[in-house]
């Protein structure tokens, strides 16, 4: 039996960064808000405090904060000719499944994506001509501009306690920051983290090579901080347990210490944990949504929660899955190239080198989520001419450490046996002496990289699993070759005792090992309903009282981590919804 609950103004599916921001903002605007979260309540006090949080088995191997694949997972294949098989254990990416979502276990890297992404097709066509973009590369402009988003980036950076150094304030280039960044109204709320030896060495080498290194902006508070909402942050202690862990020092910008507790104090807001949304409900003519159906996963009880506005704020993959399960928007067909929901799934790519310096002591256990130095010379810099290298996209290069764990991090020079006495001797010898230089690269949309519903496999609720079809294309391979050369040239200039060189990947993508939790696309934003699922306010073209918030709206993936624009777009959408509820209807004419 399904219990039909009392209607509320807004129901929010998923309570991470986006759900948390929208919960707080809309409850404060006087709307009655209910948030439904699959996972359980977790807090720094009870769960992320010492000594229990420093548990690699629980959090890294057993994925304590992540999605339970026994209940729901995805099926995966590289191309439409293959049969997709279920991913039975998390690997390549790690969606969060607790209050706070993936923003509990993220590292904190926070970037401002610029018009280089938002106007990607126009930019490349203008510079290199229409033929430069391969026919199967389905990139498109986003329908939004950096200038529109700038105040919202600022808002998110000050909420999440970003430590960094501005490189461009109102057009004035600032020494020590990223000279290629788009103009910002003011500096970051906090100064950069203290540089570790590895990032200092990378910085020196990058400068020698003529590049422009700067400290990576990150939501690891370099000092104690009180954000504009009054949330208190401790200073980062460089404990090294950042990615895949909740922060023991309340120093990592996460919704469970900022927006969510503020929402929870508001009588307009209610949180229901262990609530698994199975479907978004539509009215009879399909022009509006009426609420959501969900199951309490502790006891199997089923509910219908009617609402005037529905916000999908789950992990990017799960937002798209809910759209497909609910039959909202036309599913994308990669062969006929019709429909939009499931289109332009993108991932990221990268290469890395490990450098060994005999006699050096890097103390790799001591670092923060963002204690790297980065160069953007091959990223948001148009002076880097892609023409001769024949690829669309970009990559950033960084040196340093980011969560290298005492047990899991075992750097050894290539050629070392993979187990046994020789391996043990090598890992003891080289542990203190290694550092990495890595490139993180964009992935452009391709017509065959997409999501749809799997025809065979079903989840614990009897619903089809999401099917992911993805592989890298020659464009990404060409970029990988360029990036590997740049990384290796910097590495060699540092004269390491031993060097595991970066090599461009050429093998098909697989779900192991861990690569990046930066899955984008599927319900992409755009200027018209023919080639996008939502408008620039993340409002569904099909049902105007449905908003789909998260990296699932990105029409392609950049080299940067996605949380900056995800957070900014959440604030941007909150403002749009405040306008929308006064006079409901499409915010952009179709």
């Amino acid at each position, binding site marked *: 039996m399904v219990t039909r609950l009392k209607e509320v103004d807004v129901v929010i599916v998923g309570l991470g960064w986006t759900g948390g921001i929208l919960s707080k903002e809309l409850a404060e605007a006087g709307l009655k808000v209910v948030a439904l979260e699959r996972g359980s309540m977790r807090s*720094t*006090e009870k769960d992320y*405090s*010492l*000594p229990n949080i420093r548990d690699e088995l629980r959090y890294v191997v057993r994925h304590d904060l992540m999605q339970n694949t026994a209940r729901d997972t995805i099926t995966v294949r590289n191309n439409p000719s293959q049969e997709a098989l279920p991913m039975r254990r998390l690997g390549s990416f790690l969606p969060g499944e607790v209050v706070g979502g993936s923003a509990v276990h993220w590292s904190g890297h926070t970037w401002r994506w610029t018009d280089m992404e938002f106007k990607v097709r126009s930019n490349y066509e203008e510079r290199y001509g229409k033929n430069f973009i391969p026919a199967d590369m389905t990139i498109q402009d986003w329908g939004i501009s950096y200038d529109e988003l700038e105040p919202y980036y600022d808002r998110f950076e000050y909420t999440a306690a970003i430590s960094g150094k501005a490189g461009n304030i109102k057009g004035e280039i600032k020494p020590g920051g990223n000279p290629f960044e788009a103009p910002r109204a003011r500096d970051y709320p906090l100064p950069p983290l203290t540089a570790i030896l590895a990032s200092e060495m990378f910085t020196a080498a990058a400068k020698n090579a003529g590049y422009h290194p700067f400290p990576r902006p990150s939501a690891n508070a370099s*000092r*104690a901080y*009180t954000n504009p909402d009054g949330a*208190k*942050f*401790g*200073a980062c*202690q*460089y*404990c090294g347990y950042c990615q895949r862990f909740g922060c*023991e*020092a*309340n*120093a990592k910008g996460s919704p469970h*210490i900022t927006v969510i507790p503020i929402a929870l104090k508001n009588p307009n807001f209610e949180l229901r944990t262990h609530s698994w949304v199975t479907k978004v409900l539509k009215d009879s003519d399909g022009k509006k949504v009426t609420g959501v159906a969900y199951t309490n996963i502790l006891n199997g009880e089923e509910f219908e929660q009617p609402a005037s506005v529905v916000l999908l704020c789950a992990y990017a993959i799960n937002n798209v899955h809910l759209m497909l399960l609910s039959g909202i928007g036309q599913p994308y067909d990669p062969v006929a190239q019709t429909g939009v929901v499931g289109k332009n799934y993108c991932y990221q790519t990268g290469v890395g080198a490990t450098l060994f310096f005999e006699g050096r002591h890097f103390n790799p256990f001591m670092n923060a989520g963002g204690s790297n130095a980065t160069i953007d010379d091959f990223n948001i810099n148009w002076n880097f001419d892609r023409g001769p290298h024949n690829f669309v996209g970009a990559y950033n290069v960084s040196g340093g450490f980011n969560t290298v764990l005492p047990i899991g991090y075992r750097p050894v020079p290539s050629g070392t046996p993979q187990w046994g006495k020789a391996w043990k001797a090598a890992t003891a010898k080289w542990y203190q002496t290694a550092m990495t230089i890595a490139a993180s690269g964009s992935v452009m949309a391709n017509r065959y990289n997409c999501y749809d519903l799997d025809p065979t496999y079903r989840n614990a609720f009897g619903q089809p699993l999401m099917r992911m079809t993805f592989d890298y294309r020659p464009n990404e391979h060409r970029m990988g070759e360029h990036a590997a050369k740049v990384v290796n040239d910097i590495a060699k200039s540092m004269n390491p005792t031993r060097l595991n060189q970066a090599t461009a990947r050429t093998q098909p993508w697989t779900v192991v090992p861990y690569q990046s939790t930066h899955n984008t696309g599927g319900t992409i934003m755009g200027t018209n309903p023919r080639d996008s699922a939502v408008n620039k306010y993340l409002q569904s073209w099909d049902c105007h009282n449905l908003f789909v918030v998260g990296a699932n709206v990105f029409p392609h993936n950049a080299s940067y981590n996605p949380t900056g624009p995800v957070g900014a777009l959440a604030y941007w959408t909150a403002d749009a919804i405040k306008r929308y509820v006064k006079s409901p209807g499409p915010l952009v004419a179709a």
Partner: protein
Amino acid sequence: MMRSVMCAAAVIAAASAAVADGDAERGAKRFEECVACHALEKDKESVGPSLYGVFGRKAGEGADFRYSPALKRSGITWDQASIDSFIADPQATVPGNRMPYAGIADAAARADLIAYLVRTFK
């Protein structure tokens, strides 16, 4: 256990002379580093225990908080000197305590912080 108690006691004795007269105003600013985890109000336990009534309290007792065995065993009674030595290097003073904080190396800054706590609670 006996050794660690003696060790802690020795550190405290050495440090006590270093507690100079701090500036409570500067200390209030310095305390901002602590507020993400420690409240000053009674019974307000957070990531760390409330510091209400800290002077004269035995370490690991008082607040309704899950203290580490290391702190409970430390034998410390909190006063200006013992807080000073603990805050200088928490893990060296009480190895195995569960406060994720590297400490304040600057003696003058510690004195300011302690002056602020004294002003708050005395």
